[in-house]
């Protein structure tokens, strides 16, 4: 009679001891692929390359009109800037927006969760680069175009298609990039 106690101890084959290393090798290959892929490493809106969604915004202040989706498809590329008077980086980017306006860029603003007096005070202090300013009190547009915060800027081409997204404040070194993207969108 053989001892029944032996039944569970099967001698492991020598090659099986290398199996973990082989699996790990496969993992490394996979991960190397992932690291080397040319990837956009920032969160980008899924909406890039797609037309703007339907929206219609009330004016945020008295002396600039609000706007709707239809106003964005004017045949000329425009910059859509999402800002708020309570947002400090928005104040930081104000000079760059003014510079873009000087360069002839049409800029439309969306004030997120803001009050008329605050927006007016903000623009009085930092300058008003906007052709139109819509009020978005519920962040509806923000969600619809896939923006994750303020400030953000979108390059919209003449047909109302989103071509480029800039996350965060526009710093001086970003101005040429945005001008270039606007030119591309105008072609």
């Amino acid at each position, binding site marked *: 009679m053989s*001892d*029944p*106690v*032996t*039944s*569970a*101890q099967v*001698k*492991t084959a*020598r090659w099986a*001891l*290398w199996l*973990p*290393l082989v699996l*790990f*090798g496969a*993992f*490394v290959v*996979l*991960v*190397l*692929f*992932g*690291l080397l*892929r040319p990837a956009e*490493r920032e969160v980008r809106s899924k909406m890039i390359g797609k037309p703007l969604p339907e929206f219609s915004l009330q004016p945020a202040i008295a002396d600039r009109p609000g706007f709707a989706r239809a106003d964005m498809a004017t045949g000329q590329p425009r910059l859509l800037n999402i800002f*708020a008077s*309570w*947002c*400090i*980086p928005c104040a930081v980017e104000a000079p760059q927006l003014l510079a873009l306006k000087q360069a002839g860029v049409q800029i439309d603003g969306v004030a997120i*969760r803001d009050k008329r007096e605050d927006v007016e005070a903000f623009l009085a202090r930092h300058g008003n680069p906007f052709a139109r300013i819509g009020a978005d*009190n*519920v*962040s*509806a547009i923000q969600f619809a175009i896939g923006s994750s*915060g*303020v400030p953000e800027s979108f390059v919209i081409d003449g047909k109302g298609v989103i071509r480029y997204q800039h996350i965060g404040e526009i710093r001086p070194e970003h101005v040429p990039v945005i001008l270039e993207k606007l030119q591309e969108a105008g072609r």
Partner: protein
Amino acid sequence: MIAEFGLAALWLAAALAALQLLAGVLGLTARGAELGQIVRPLAVVQGVLTLLSFLALMVLFWQTDLSVKLVAMNSHSAKPLLYKLAGTWGNHEGSMLLWVMVMGLAGSFVALVERRLPEPTMLATLAGQAFVSLGFYAFLLFSSNPFERLNPAAPEGQGLNPLLQDPGLAFHPPTLYIGYVGLSVAFSFAIGALVTREVGPAFARAMRPWVLGSWIFLTLGIVAGSYWAYYELGWGGWWFWDPVENASLMPWLAATALLHSVSVLAARNALRAWTVMLGVVAFSMSMVGTFLVRSGILTSVHAFAVDPERGSFILALLLINIGGALALFGLRAGTVTEGERFALTSREGALVFNNVLLSATLGIVLLGTLYPLLAEALGAQVSVGPPYFNPMSAVFVVPMLVVMGIGPLLRWRRDSLARVRWSVIVPLALMLLTGAAFALKGVAVLPVLGMALAAGLVVASLLPLRGRKLRQVKLPLWGMVVAHFGVAVALFGMACDSAYTTEKLVALREGETVAVGPWQIDLVAIEPVAGPNWTALQATLSARYDGGSAVKLQPQARSFWTPPQQTSESALETRWNGQLYAVLGERAEDGRWQLRLWWKPFVTLIWYGGVLIALGGLLALLGRVASDLRRFIARDKIAYRKSRQGR
């Protein structure tokens, strides 16, 4: 000065680690035996230096020293003190320093207290620990220096991600890190044992407290993280199979398997190669998890500051550490002598099943986590979520829970199922009845399975205590019973949550009422409120359970200004039989407010169960440490007597 002091301490610690590695390796040779004597002191000093370095960074955060880049990027002078301190580890560089500190302190502790193992194995272990540490020192010093200065100093800091400004999250990362990095000791023990081929009960007993301790912290870290995600993200769920969650679950699964196999090795001197293997795998999973999270290779809601260069650095570390350890395993495991034999139906047999099933679950989670990457390599964009993870993990977890009920009743070495059949009949009957009752009510398959198993396990987990005098039951046995009972409790919570949650998305005006499950909820008012570094809209809800007295809930939509971000603070009302969960949403055009309301029966049992599991681990750890101490003292006494007699 403080920053420079911290950096100097870090460099010095790295140098000592290099010396420790060298002395450890030379100490193993016949000529260098004397060098081996400095290894333990080196490990101790190295640990102290990492502690000093970490404390230096903490002081910088406490003072909000804006001339240090890391502080300027991640803190703000207007932040509450708790979050200033928590900011130390709430970022990439600081958390890596925390990692290195835990590793250094663990190494010193091993060097100070571990006296059971033969000296060569100890040398190899400490050399292994130094080797792994060196890689992380290099990572910190060359690519993630936390003490880098900013010239000129920033006028104000940029703040800490508001989602992280929460007391639960202040302590969640360090808890998880202690768990992750504690496993490095098990890893080093495995390396040491492979080098000297000394795999046996002494090795298992030396390793066990480390595995237990790390496992307790990992369990608590996961429970805390799950509860944080539940109330802070405002999605009403408690587990999302997010890569970051999986990154903490995978080492936990490996550590759980290791915990069980190390018991077999300690008690029966079986499963030798397998235990060594798991020792390597557990810490490897910690490193893989960290890599996946930090490299930005997978998309996750938890994205850390992502940097491909750092990713490559950690990958190189993985290659060297894990690849090296697995190669050593391939070379040496075949020469580790075979352990004791046992029958399939025995305590060992059940633990082998448990190990195989836990490893399979680990494989499933790893595959699901990496699958999006694999698919991308093949040219497709996919995301893998609960529809994959839930059923696939259930395939392995369900049989594992059955084995968990029966295994502890079996004897070591050899037993028969016939012997225990009368013991398991009560839990089995309870399981079938519960399953049938809920199935007839029309509950879905997985929750029914969950409730049935939970009912059976609640009884089965207590069975090992049957026929024993409770006062004489040893702590480790209590630990097992409590932990297994905790699994049943958590399982019941999960099943109830998925079967009986009521969810409502409503738009209300102030003064209007809505019913959710047994609750009547009035929207009393919406008002603005201000906190130290945020403003918020706050809804006041008055809720009555089943016509009882009213309780107040105040969910908020918060706006932080440094950095500008909005978070929703859910409000919870906890009763013994569940939780009411409220989230304030957007304002609709007509002046109504969106509210998301959930009634979740028994959902809290998930986390209570998790805490019980950790408590079970703690009892087992205390029991083991106490008996080790007793043995230690007894041996000292004998040695003392002998020395007296010899005089």
